[in-house]
């Protein structure tokens, strides 16, 4: 989903990036989870209860393995709570779900652009409020860099003519993004994170 128009959607991509970062990157989600558990033990939501059907999950510090998996796996199931929370914030402040769920085929670019402004402003506000995001590489895109032996392969992805040994010389085609700090709201134990936007009924 990254090879779309770099303008507006490129920026939306930041929102996607953070969102899927939690969904897809177990280590990152784990960090978020630890962050949420550490300072506020009684406040931390009961993750076991939030996991799908934790019927026989005993009280254990490690994240409960998904019941569908027959054998113990080293792969961790990401907690959906933080992802749902972020989705809720994006909907509340940026009308994110409304925007993505709306059928845009029949609208003019001007109409979509007007709505996109709103979504963009909101997404940006959510990201700035809840994350500290910095580029992985500080060099300008297009400049040449040398990667020494032992570089962090998770932070820098090699593409193209990947042969030989480090040091590798190449050109930065994307600076990358890393989240240095995550500040998600603390949740009450009873809070149902799956309601990312409550229905509104005006009396």
């Amino acid at each position, binding site marked *: 989903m990254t090879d779309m128009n770099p303008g507006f959607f490129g920026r939306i991509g930041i929102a996607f990036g953070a969102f899927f970062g939690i969904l897809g990157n177990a280590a990152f989600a784990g960090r978020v989870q630890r962050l949420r558990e550490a300072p*506020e033990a009684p*406040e931390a939501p009961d993750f076991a209860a939030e996991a799908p059907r934790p019927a026989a999950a005993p009280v254990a510090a490690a994240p409960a393995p998904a019941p569908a998996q027959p054998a113990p796996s080293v792969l961790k199931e990401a907690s959906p709570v933080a992802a749902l*929370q972020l989705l*809720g914030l994006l909907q*509340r402040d940026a*009308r994110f779900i*409304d*925007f993505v*769920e*709306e059928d*845009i085929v029949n*609208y003019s670019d001007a*109409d*979509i652009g*007007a*709505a996109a*402004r*709103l*979504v963009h*402003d909101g997404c940006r506000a959510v990201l700035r409020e809840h994350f500290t995001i910095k580029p992985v590489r500080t060099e300008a895109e297009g400049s040449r860099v040398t990667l020494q032996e032992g570089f962090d392969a998770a932070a820098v992805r090699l593409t193209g003519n990947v042969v030989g040994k480090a040091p590798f010389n190449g050109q930065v085609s994307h600076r990358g993004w890393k989240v240095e700090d995550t*500040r998600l*709201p*603390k*949740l*009450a*134990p*009873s*809070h*149902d994170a799956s309601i990312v936007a409550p229905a*509104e009924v005006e009396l």
Partner: protein
Amino acid sequence: MSDIDSNENQARYSIGVDLGTTHCALSYVDMSASDGEKTAQGVLPISQLTAPGAAEERDLLPSFLYLPHENELAPGDLTLPWTQERTFIVGELARSRGAGTPIRLVSSAKSWLCHPGVDRRAAILPSDAPEEVERVSPMESSVRYLTHLREAWNHAHPDAPFDRQDVTVTIPASFDPAARELTAEAAAAAGYSRMTLLEEPQAALYSWIQKSAGGWRKQVKVGDVILVVDVGGGTTDLSLIAVVEREGNLELHRVAVGEHILLGGDNMDLALAHTVARKLAALGTQPDPWQLRALTYACRSAKETLLSDPTVEAVPLVVPSRGSKLIGGSLRTELTRAELTQILLEGFFPQVDASARPVSRARVGLTQLGLPYAQDAAVTRHLAAFLGRQVNALAEVEGLRHQAPQGATLLHPTVVLFNGGVFKSPLLVERVMTTLNAWLAAESAPPARLLEGADLDLAVARGAAYYGYVRRGKGVRIRGGTARAYYVAVESAMPAVPGLEPPVQALCVAPFGMEEGTDAELPAQEFGLVVGEPVHFRFFGSSVRRQDQVGTLLEYWQPDELQELEEIEASLPPEGRTPGEVVPVKLHARVTEAGTLELEAIPRGSSERWKVEFDVRGGLSGDMRADQGMGL
């Protein structure tokens, strides 16, 4: 960090609380880690609900109180990090909930707290709530904001309990003694046991001094007169502070404060939104109340863009539909620079002459139901009136080396300090400076300089925390004491003429410039109090009569010299006396350490002291009361 000072009673932190009309903030100085002009200061991120069941930390606590319906929220939705027992909401969630359900939202409690037309201790807010909503008093809602701040502090600093720290709470310089007293009372009710009041413009200057880390001595010199222009979310507050020399040191002396003006940034956003709404209506779209609120919000950020970047000509505004169809139902329009200039610059900051004065219309009928907003929105006209009224304010200041120019019609400030988020805009700063400097140039005075480097959002809280530190003798203090002299009405001893109000004299009971912790002399005059019955006195304040001493009796004064404040009420309990007996008493004034004015009645030939209360039950009408105290 668990090491508490060896002296248990010595506070480690000086805490500054900005109790604002639209936002509260808390800053602190760690006094054990500060030395001289090097201070270790922080701002407390305030835990608050931002959505049902979700708490976050923000630097500002919106001053909003929401009183939810019992079925409105799920159990546990109001859980704060430190308690689950809350039936109301304070802060960000209160504001966002209240946008959808204004009948349950209390806002601008601070403006209600100094509204002389209502009973501030009565449960009257929200003012337009239906019967079944349990209302709260303006005082109670301030107590709840202050309590939230105390709890947030205690949660974040379990090793340094709030009630053992030195706390400074800020108030507008224009607050009258009754509003100061109510704020102090609210703080006490919220568990603030060691509390001092500080005027907001002074706090802004303290913050600037602290930020300069000693450099302020190079930026101002003896003879400078600093004008502080503080435009907050809901109020405009003006103060003049002179730089004087005493015993070879620079000292700051607050010489005058302005009137109470209910006019702020929120009025500006609202004015813009209404203009844009009219534009939409002309095109055939009528925004509903919900959309109007969204439009106000959009206008605020559009205003900030236009005011900070002079190359932008127009900012598009999009108001989303309320339903889940985002694109289909959006309203689209724009805010242009021409509109902004017309409304903000010409409406709120017009370039007027120094002789301009705020326009006041006679209020029609019963207007006491709402807040008494300023009738003239032009900040510059209020400023002209303030400088004009205070033209002679510097005559009495010692050590200023000030030579009042002949024939000046306004006081000439030499430097200006701005405070409040409104002045993040260089255009507005420039407009005020240009207008002021045109007035100065017309009287051949040098132009005023701008004090740079103010922190516009958090300056008041930061300055308040710094003040608590300075009070211990660690830096320069702003002196000046009370900015008003106070008088009680005495009926003159002349035969009553039917149909004519008996002429009233004003007896000075507290002179201008009383410092905290000082007592006024005892006046020679005595009043007759009826034992067992409350007796009311009309009470006046003057921000210009600097020479009157205790006992000065005014028979005549200019209408704008004395402002009538709320009545004061004295009652003598019947113990040891016959009810109905008339006892002669003297009225004694003192300014407490906390910064409130206290009046006492002292019976003749006795050491008893009876507190005289400010009557804050509203109904200030200017009429004479039947039970007016008699002059003896």
